[in-house]
C-alpha cells in the first residue's frame, strides 16, 4: 500500500445502502462525501409503507 492515499471516501447514492455505508465509514474513522442526485436522501425505502416480514414501518 502506498501512503499517498486520502483518508476519505465518496459514497455515490443516498439510498438505504449508500446512507448506511456512509455512516459505517464515518463512524470507523473516514471522512465521507455522500453524493445523491435527487433533492433528498432516503431512496426507495423511504417511499415504502411497511417492510416484510415484520411489517415494520419503513420510515
Amino acid at each position, binding site marked *: 500500500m502506498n501512503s499517498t492515499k486520502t483518508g476519505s471516501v465518496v459514497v*455515490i447514492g443516498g439510498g*438505504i445502502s*449508500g446512507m448506511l455505508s456512509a455512516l459505517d465509514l464515518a463512524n470507523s474513522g473516514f471522512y465521507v462525501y455522500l453524493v445523491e442526485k435527487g433533492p*433528498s436522501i432516503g431512496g426507495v425505502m423511504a417511499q415504502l409503507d411497511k417492510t416484510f416480514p415484520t411489517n415494520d414501518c419503513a420510515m
Partner: protein
Amino acid sequence: MPLKYVINPDVCLKLQKDKCGTCADVCPANAIDYTQTEETITLNAGSIVFSPGFKPFDPSRFDNYQYANYPNVVTSMEFERLLSASGPTHGHVMTMPKLPMKPKKKADKALAEKRKDPKKIAWFQCVGSRDMNKCDNAYCSSVCCMYAVKEAIIAKEHDPELEPYIFFMDMRTPGKEFEKYYQNAKEKHGINFVRARVHSVTEDRDTHDLNIRYADEMGQIVDDSFDMVVLSVGLEIPQETRDMAEKLGIDITDHGFCKTDSFEPVTSSRDGVYVSGVFNNPKDIPESVLDASAAASAAGDFLADVRGTMTKAEEKIEETNVIGDPPKIGVFVCDCGSNIAGVVDCPSLTEYAKELPYVEFATETLYACAQDTQDKMVETIKEKGLNRIVVAACTPKTHEPLFQESMVNAGLNKYLFEMTNIRNHNSWVHKNNPEIATEKAKDLVRMAVAKAALAQPLAEEKINVNDTVMVVGGGLAGLTAAKSLATQGYDTHIVEKKDVLGGEALKLYKTAQGEDVGEKMAALVADIEANEKITVHTNTTLEGVEGFVGNFKSKLVSGGNETELEHGVAVLATGAKCSEPTEYCFGDDDRIIKTLDLDKMLKEQDAKLDSVKTAVFIQCVGSREPNRPYCSRVCCTHSIDNAIELKKRNPETDVFILYRDIRTYGERELLYKEARELGVIFIRYEVDRKPEVKVEKDAVKITLIDHVLNQPVEIEADLLTLAAAIEPRKDERLANFFKVPLNDEGFFVEKHAKLGPAEFATDGVFVAGSGHYPKPVNEAATQGRAAASRALTLLAKKDSLFTSGTIATVDQEKCSQCGVCVSICPYNAPGFAADGRFAGTAEINPVLCKGCGLCVASCRSGALHLRGFDTNQIFSQIFALGEVV
C-alpha cells in the same frame, strides 16, 4: 430525510420565462434564490462506494397489461404509496389512484366519481423480471414475491372484505422468516395464490373494472374480473447508471449489475471502487444493509493506513447545571405537516400548553424535526433559559435522539427531555374525531409536562473498550470478518473447534459463478495464517464468557488446556450444517446421495459419474416442512449448478430436477435458464404429493405425479441427489454465553431484521454466516465483512462509548438484600456491593444495565428505581391524567 422544497427548473415559469416569481414573494425565510446554478465540485477521496440503486421497471411498454391506459392498473410502487399513511390517500386504498385526488379536468372528474373501495385486487408477478419476450430482463428481481405478499396482507388488514389474488410462476420466499410469512398469508390472511402467468387485461369501459384471462395449471382458460391490478414490477439498472459505471471503469453484467467475485462480493473490477445495494445484484433491504456495511469494510481495508487522518473531532458544548433550578419547560408542538395538524387543533393545543405549570414557553412548528426548527430550538433554549423540553410530535423511537442532540447543542443534559406521541397514538388513530383527538393531545402534553418537571440530568458512564476481537467459527464468514478486522489494525483471534479452518465451504465444489471454492478457500486460509494480527485457535472450544461490551473475558479450552482471552467485541460465525435426510430411502443405497456428496464426487472427478445415465435431484428435502418451516435458500441454485455440470460433462445424461418452487433469485435465474436450455427437465411436485423412491437392483425408481399431465411419471435413475435442508447448530450454550437469542428453528436472531442484520441486540456481539440463516458463498462473505464493519465502528469509538443514562439505581438504605434483582436480571447487571457502608446491598453495573425495569418491578422493598422513569415521574403522569382541567 431533510424536508426541503426544491424548484423543478423544467416547469418553473420564473426560470423558463422569467414570469411568476410568487414563491420568492411569499417565502418568509427568503430562501428562494433563482440565481443558483449547477456547480461542479471536485472531491479528492481515497476510495468510492458506488451505490446507485435501481429504477422500478416501467411497464408502460407492455400493451397486454395496458398500464399506460387503464386507470386501475398500477405498479407495486404506486400501490405502496396508496397503503402509506403519508401517501396521497393517507393509506386509504381506492380505485383509480393515478388520477389527482381532486381532479380539475372534466374527464378526470367524471372518472373520479366512479372511484370505489376495491374488493378484489390481483397482483401480477414477474413484470419486467424473468422475461425475455417483452423485455430483456432475464434475471429475477428477488424482492417482488415478498413485497406482493406484504402488500396483499396490509391491504387485507385495511379492509378485511378484500379478496387479494397473487398470480405467480414460482413463489420465491427464500429469506429469513419469509416462508412463514408466505404460509401465514395463505392460511391466516386468506390471500389467494394462483400459479399462472396472466395473458392479458381488458377493461370494462363503463365501470373500468378489469377482466383478465389466464391459463390455470391444468391448462384451462379462466376469465375473471378485478377492481384493480397491481403489477409487481422488477428492479432495473437504468442506462444512466450503466454510463456512470463505464465512466468509473467498472465491469458490469449484461443486465447492468456489477460484476463481483463471490469471495469479495462488494469489490468492483477497479481498485478502490466498491459497490453495494441493488446495483450489486437485485436484493432486499437487509441484504442492501449488509452490502452497505460490507462496502464500508472493504473501502476501509483499502485505506487502512490512512484511517482517521481526515476526521474532525466534534466540538464539545459545556453542560449547564440545572440541579436546584425551578423547572422552566419549553413545549414544542409539531404539526407534522398535516399529519397531526390535519386532525389536532395545534394552535389551541399550544395555547393550552402555555398555561400548564412550569411551562415557560410553547410554540407550534410545521416540522419539529426539520433542521431549521432544531436550530431555533437551541436558540430558544438559550434565550429563554429553558431547562426542560417537551416535544409533542411522533415516536421517540425514531426521533428522540435527534431532539436530544439539539438539547446537547443547547448545553442541556439530554435526559431533561420528554417526548409525547400525538401522531401515531393520536392523530392517526382518531382521525375521524378531531375534537376528541385535540382533547387527548392536551392530556398527553399535560402528562409529559408533569413528568418533564421532575426530570433530572442523568450521567452516562464511559465504557472502556478492549481492542482485541474474538471471532467464533473459522468458516468463510468468520475468516472474512477476521481478515478485515486484522487489516484495519485490530488483534483478532479465531476460535475454531475443528482442526482446520474453512468450515463447510471446504465441501463445496464451485460457486454459482463458477469459481473453484477449494482454491479460493485455500488462498483465504493462507492469507489468514500469514496475517500477524490474527491468532488462530484450532481444536478449541469456548467454555465460558464473562463481561460485556468492550470488556469480555472468554475461556478457551484446547486439548485440556484452558486459556483466558480478553476481548472487546465478538463475532459469532458458527455456521450451519447439512441435515441428514430421513426420507426418500436415504442411506439404503449408495446411489442416493446428498448435494454435498455430489460436490465431493465432482471435486474428485469420481469415475462413477461417467456411468450415470439418468440423474435426478429432489429439492426441499426437509425444508419447507412442518418441523423445518424455512426455505434453505441455497439448494435450488446448488442443484441446478450441479445439473448443468452433469449435462456439460455428458450431454447424453438425462437430468431431472423435482422441485416445489425454483428459487434462483437475482442473476442466479440465468443458471435456471441455462439448465433448461441444456435440456435439464424440471418437474414440479406438491408437498402433499411427494415423489416416491424405491430402490431396485438396476435403478432407483422415482414416481411422482406430473403437474402438467396430472399423470404418474416414473423415472429410473442411477443417481439420486437429495437437496437436504441446511440446519442451524442450535448452540444454546453459546447463545447463553453472550445473551443472544435463537429463533424457533435455532438460527441466531439479529438486532433488527432490516437495519441490524449483522449484529445482535447485545452490544459488542456481531453475527455472520449461516448461523444467522443459510446463505451461499457471496452472501456469507458479505455478512462477514458487514459484521467486521459494524464491529469496527464500535472499536473506532473507543473513547466515546457511553452507557445509557436510563438505567436502574439502588436506594441502598431501603435494600433488603434479598437478591431478587440479582436473580431476575437477564443481563447480569445487579450484584451485591462488596464493601463500604452499604456492603451486601444491591448495586447496578451501569454498563450492563439495559434499563428494562424488570428489577425495579420485582423489588419488594421499593429500593430500585429506573432513572428517567422514576416512580414519582410515573405517578405524576398518572395524576396529571386524572386531573380535571
